[in-house]
């Protein structure tokens, strides 16, 4: 099984491991992530204005490329997923954006939202299946108490992201369980880490990550996992906080393909 794959800027730089572990794990699970050609940065945040078109085009380009290959489009980074999924929804449902974006793009076949966008977690849950994943685990992460950090981007707006219950998600907990570890549910797992605010308002962002870290450790988590490099960066700002790792690292470890990939 082959998926079109959109890595995004940070996965080529600061978060190379997030990408490398994901690809290795994918192969171990019997599917392949084929990077789409000439992808461009998604912009990191979804352009909220109804009149912002140009900033949505990089997503459209990626979506149209996957469509032309007849594949589903897989993402890893929460921010990329959020942006591309929402632009796709615009292309499906907002006639004005669809028309104007296509006018810009001049594709051979206009893009009208045909591509299905999947986050890597959705591939694991809906395509591979957590039961099948559990069977492929060679190094069960027994005894590890892991808190899942979802953040906001994967979950909200729930209607469009349709990723999980935005107020009580479970996909990452199921994932942790499939790897043989013990998920720790804590109430702030779907609250914002501060996002881009941490560039200029470090203190404010730290106050927010403190709340998240405190809640997770209070419920007994020993580490946090995330899909987003920015979430990881922000959560690490909390002094003496729990270690934060990419979920793909744990996955690669459990599947026994971690060795040889440079951290």
């Amino acid at each position, binding site marked *: 099984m082959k998926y079109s794959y959109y890595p995004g800027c940070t996965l080529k730089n600061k978060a190379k491991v997030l990408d490398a572990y994901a690809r290795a794990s994918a192969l171990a699970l019997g599917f392949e992530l084929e990077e789409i050609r000439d992808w461009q940065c998604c912009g990191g945040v979804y352009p909220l204005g109804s009149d912002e078109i140009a900033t949505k085009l990089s997503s459209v380009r990626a979506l149209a490329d996957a469509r032309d290959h007849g594949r589903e489009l897989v993402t890893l980074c929460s921010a990329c997923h959020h942006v591309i999924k929402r632009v796709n929804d615009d292309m499906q449902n907002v006639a004005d954006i669809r028309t104007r974006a296509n006018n810009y793009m001049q594709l051979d076949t206009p893009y009208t939202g045909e591509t299905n966008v999947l986050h890597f977690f959705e591939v694991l849950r809906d395509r591979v299946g957590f039961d099948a994943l559990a069977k492929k685990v060679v190094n069960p992460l027994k005894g590890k108490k892991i808190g899942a950090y979802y953040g906001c981007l994967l979950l909200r707006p729930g209607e469009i992201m349709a990723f999980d*219950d935005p107020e009580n998600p479970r996909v990452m907990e199921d994932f942790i369980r499939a790897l043989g570890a013990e998920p720790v549910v804590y*109430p702030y797992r779907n609250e914002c880490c501060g996002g881009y605010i941490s560039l200029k308002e470090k203190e404010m962002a730290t106050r927010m990550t403190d709340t998240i870290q405190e809640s997770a450790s*209070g419920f007994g988590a020993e580490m946090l996992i995330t899909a987003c490099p920015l979430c990881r960066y922000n959560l690490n700002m909390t002094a003496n906080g729990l270690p934060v790792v990419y979920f793909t690292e744990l996955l690669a470890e459990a599947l026994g393909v971690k060795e040889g990939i440079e951290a």
Partner: protein
Amino acid sequence: MQRIGVFVCHCGSNIAATVDVKKVVEMAAREPSVVHAEDYPYMCSEAGQAKIAQAVAEKGLTGIVVCSCSPRMHEATFRKAAERAGINPFMVEIANIREHCSWIHKNIEEGTEKAIILARAAIAKVNLNAPLFPGESRVTKRALVIGGGIAGIQSALDIADAGYEVDIVEKTPSIGGRMAQLDKTFPTLDCSACILTPKMVEAAAHEKIRIYTYSEVEKISGFVGDFTVDIRKKARSIDATKCTGCGVCQEKCHSKKSLSEFNRGLGTRSAIYTPFAQAIPNVPVIDREACIKFKTGKCGVCAKVCAAGAIDYEQKDEIITEKYGAIVVATGFDTIKLDKYDEYAYNQSKDVITSLELERVMNAAGPTKGHLERLSDGKHPEHIVFVQCVGSRCSDERGKPYCSKICCMYTAKHAMLIRDKYPDVKVTVFYIDVRTPGKNFDEFYRRAVEEYGVNYIKGQVGKVAPQPDGSLLVQASDLLDNKQIKLKADMVVLATAIEPDPSVRPLATMLTASIDTNNFLTEAHPKLRPVESPTAGIFLSGVCQGPKDIPETVAQAGAAAVKAIGLLAKDKLTTNPCTAKADELLCNGCSTCANVCPYGAISYETKLINDHGIREDRRVAVVNNALCQGCGACTVACPSGAMDLQGFSNRQIIAEVDAICR
């Protein structure tokens, strides 16, 4: 040739403000057959109706057009006025120049022009009207009440007391409904069971009332005065004639882990059970999903311990077919599912409960025997937070757009009762608005604040976060202080929106009763006919029509009963004369019309027909006027145009089309 009178109503300024009524009169007077045209401020008044009588007498009118409000408002009024004046009531047509014209158009030219055209269409139709004469149909003097809560019980008692037989159909094993689940009632704090159970007993003992519990309506056919209803009596697995209600079977039952529906899933019950102690009938049912005997074939302990030999594992569902003249719908409500509101952590913490669950917690027969305690650890709470409007007043698909109406009052009740019984417990209520219209209602709410020290904070709760120590962190707005506050609570109670019981949707389809987008049954008129469905013979009792509290429900139940009694008191009903009629000379006898008739009103006869001198036996359609309801499906199915609908004939409608497109 008709002699038509046109009467244009001002409706005060309701019509006259955007329609130049004088101009309408002037233009109408020029239409063919119009011999009289005038305007009047209120045509529906006595004086307005007298104008019609006067014109009939003076000008010898044969047809009447009233340009006024919707025919749904005053068609009957003007038909009666015409009848009094000596004209067949079906020679009256209404041009709706209020709801369909003056009220929606602002420009007087536009409004006037449209009103003239609507008047022309009505005139063109009346030109082709013919006198019609209603027939008669019989009334079965028995009522069906669907739903055995307080609404259904009250309607049944009132109808039965008037001397008519009533059947109550209740889907659960006992009558009582939601009210039976409540602990106390506002604003008097009566014990709910204490005031409800006498009514339940009275209904059960009433010689005119039959109660079918654990039963559902399966099929409804017929029409006002003559409904035929199939009732499915689900297999109770108990012979009710033998059961003494001793309760030994329930004690001895080996399967005791089923969640109690009556306790909202907060406690358990046995597989053989009566929902609550005062259940009526006091005859248990076996939950076949939970019963070991049904699941494995083994066990059978209930049959062994039953001295009366009432257990019957072989019992089957039974279909009972009955005839009724009137049907009262009293299907009630349930609380909405909170799956999509997990910011309140309802699925994450046992200490976040709905208000209806709190009723069970507060009740002596409930899961905690009436002790206020946390369901997670049984600890006495120090601080309880109430959240109002959970799912009510929501314009998204998560909740309901309407106000559930009862929550403000029952929350005040809960807060007060808790503070009264446990003065050490702190109570905070988060509200958007406190809505307390009703006798002694606001006083009641103020007592909660002033005498019982309940802390009301204006603002909604944004998140409830369970804490490692088992407490709940409530993050909310304090709008008056313009602050975001975080409170530590031990329990959170959600004033969950109510919605019509889901069974009402298929029932409405069976009844052909109209239902709104929120699944509340629609009333015939929101103000003037609030307890009747637009479908004749169907009456609305309780929350199935809209959110209401107990006194309102009881009042409406009584009103619905009176309307039903009014119907049952008649021996005959006049039928709608706007029925289909086949022209024998044109009929092919092809049966196409009968295929689309929902009432089986069309049959075929072989008749000797004299078709312009050709005499031959022909198969022709015959419409039974008592059965035909006048939908017109047959008229379009008929290729030859032999089938036509009286009052809405092909030529009449075409005349209207022509007048509008002229």
